[in-house]
């Protein structure tokens, strides 16, 4: 849900940009010319409808969250924060939120650093078994998390990582790393080796050349990989639910499912919890979407 919002946001921006800016060269221009006879509204109206379609559920969530229970107003006024009070203080979303933030940041940091390091190695060095390694990385994506649940549970129990955010971070990093690694090595491959070599001719060590030349150009990639890592961790439900046997280690998705009882659901609390869970993701996308479009298109077109 949250990802769609991000995608919609970027999509709208991108299209708005292309209609005003001169069309980019190459194949895209030819296509743009073929579509030229269309009027702006032919793009805007469908896009606006699509935007409505994605935003209405969010509007409903907001309405449910801020109107008092029992009310059926479509435009809630006066706004009531009773549901937020319930979820934050009574249900414990304060703790869940903290846990989710710590976990999200941990995953972000480790996935970004490790994928830059590994991605660089994959892009710049040739080593025996490289293809096999890449293939194995890709194949690991086919394994559903549920299958790893019990083995991981047993291992984590053995080394005392149950009921800890550290354990969740390790598990989530392990699951996210392969794809991030492949993405990152694609980005790095697109940065010309010549620049690096030039820096080394000028006396840089490989490490310094990396920091001086490669890393600045990797910004969009770092943002793309980092934000997806964060959001992936933010939405992680299964591990968070299974590895925590103490309520003070629950994360937000677990907290949300906690508001859904077998016989009664407090829709106000559920919606308020949903808002609490969605806001950081929306903020992340609002801040990084500019870089994200750069990052994604850089990977897509040149790759």
């Amino acid at each position, binding site marked *: 849900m949250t990802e769609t919002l991000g995608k919609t946001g970027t999509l709208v921006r991108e299209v708005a940009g292309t209609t005003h800016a001169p069309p980019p060269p190459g194949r895209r221009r030819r296509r743009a010319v073929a579509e030229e006879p269309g009027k702006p509204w032919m793009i805007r109206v469908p896009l606006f409808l699509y935007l409505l379609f994605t935003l209405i559920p969010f509007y409903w969530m907001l309405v449910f969250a801020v109107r008092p229970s029992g009310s059926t107003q479509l435009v809630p006024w006066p706004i009531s924060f009773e549901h937020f009070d319930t979820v934050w203080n009574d249900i414990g979303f304060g703790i869940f939120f903290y846990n989710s933030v710590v976990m999200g940041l941990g995953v972000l940091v480790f996935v970004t650093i490790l994928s830059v390091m590994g991605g660089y190695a994959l892009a710049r060095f040739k080593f025996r078994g490289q293809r096999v390694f890449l293939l194995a990385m890709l194949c690991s994506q086919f394994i559903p998390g549920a299958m790893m649940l019990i083995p991981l*549970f047993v291992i984590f129990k053995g080394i005392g990582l149950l009921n800890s955010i550290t354990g969740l971070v390790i598990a989530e990093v392990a699951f996210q790393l392969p794809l991030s690694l492949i993405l990152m090595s694609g980005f790095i491959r697109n940065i010309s080796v010549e620049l690096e070599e030039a820096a080394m001719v000028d006396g840089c060590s490989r490490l310094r050349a990396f920091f001086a030349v490669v890393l600045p150009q990797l910004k969009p990639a770092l943002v793309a990989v980092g934000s997806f890592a964060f959001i992936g961790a933010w939405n992680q439900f299964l591990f968070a639910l299974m590895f925590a046997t103490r309520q003070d280690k629950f994360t937000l998705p677990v907290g949300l499912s906690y508001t859904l009882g077998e016989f009664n659901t407090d829709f106000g609390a559920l919606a308020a919890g949903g808002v609490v869970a969605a806001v950081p993701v929306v903020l992340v996308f609002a801040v990084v979407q500019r870089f994200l479009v750069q990052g994604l298109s850089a990977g897509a077109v040149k790759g």
Partner: protein
Amino acid sequence: MRKLLVAVAAAALALSACSSEGGGGTDGNVTITFWDNNGGPAREPIYKELISRFESANPNIKVEYVGIPSASVQQKYDTAIAGGETPDVGGVTTSYLAHLVGQEALAPLDDRINSGPLKDKLLPSLVETVRQTAPDGKLYIVPSSANMDIIWYRTDWFKDAGLEAPKTWDEFITTAEKLTDTGANKYGYTIRGGAGSVFQLITEAYAYSGVDNFFKDGKSTLNDPANAELVDKVADLYKKATPEADVNNSFTQMIAQFTGGSVAMMHHNLGSYSDVTKALGDKVAAMPLPVGPSGKRTVVPNPTDGFAVFKNSENQDAAWKFAEFLTSAESNSYWNEKVGQIPANTDVRSAAWIDTAAHVKMALGVLEDPATILVPAPVYLPQYSSITKTESEPQYQKVLLGELTGQQFLDDMAKKLTEAEKEWEERK
């Protein structure tokens, strides 16, 4: 240097001793973990209150409460069993009890119940349901409360139309038709056609047919012609006395239609008590499922809720003490009054709140009536839920849409159930 090393080692030892949680300390204090199988803001405060009462009565036992979201509780238990991290006490319902017993995760409670104050104090029909769920007939949970299928109806609509609550299915059907006014968007009944539909349909079918056992000579009785008759009768009501959207109704939509005021009668269970009364106040009441032409009252019991002591627990005595406390007359009364379900402890029968909670009194009356025949669904069959949910719910929608007859629909399901039962008997 050596001294330092020794000191460090001693400190480490002391630390690791402290951090071994849950175990019995040398001072006799124990901490036990309790998993609530339907955790959430609605039930957590009730348990918290009971736990604080328990802790003040037993100062050497601490109870750690963990609420598990009800949708994931079975998976959570399975993972915990596989990983050897089960709680000491847990809420368990008969719907997945057989599964847990099959993994040898629970301790039988017969002896503990019979040697304590709970002896002969538990509603026999519930005890029987629990016994029938375990392959060896032992009691692996101490039942705490029961739910029952009932029909919620709008007393104000009935009064305006000069109608009485129907007693038989035929009356029920004519009542539903009489209360329908499609022009005014008023319908007599709402059918659950979406998720969870078939379980409700089965209880209706057995209530109608009066067939008193799920299997006869190893063969499923589900496709009994009388059961099929009921399915067809319900399907006939579709669109005539029910909203057209019913074919996709799950619990949420069904209850939204009812509390929204467009439906006169809804088949659900006691669990929706707080939702319906919050929306409709005293304009709603409960009646038992009507009886069929046989005149016999057959009830397919809902899953029974209870507490289990886990075999892996190092503090089984303390765990049992807590389970026993939760099912004692006082706690059981407090708990069931809050959630509006049938108390398992028979001493609660005389509690004052039962007289004011008409729906509980009615349901209790049905369960205590010697003429009532319990027909427990074979929830012990591992395939039961996939047969009645995944495989059958879409088929039932076809029945509602008139693409399949009730008999064809039940024949198919009965065949699968018979096979599953045969497999079960062979393995036993």
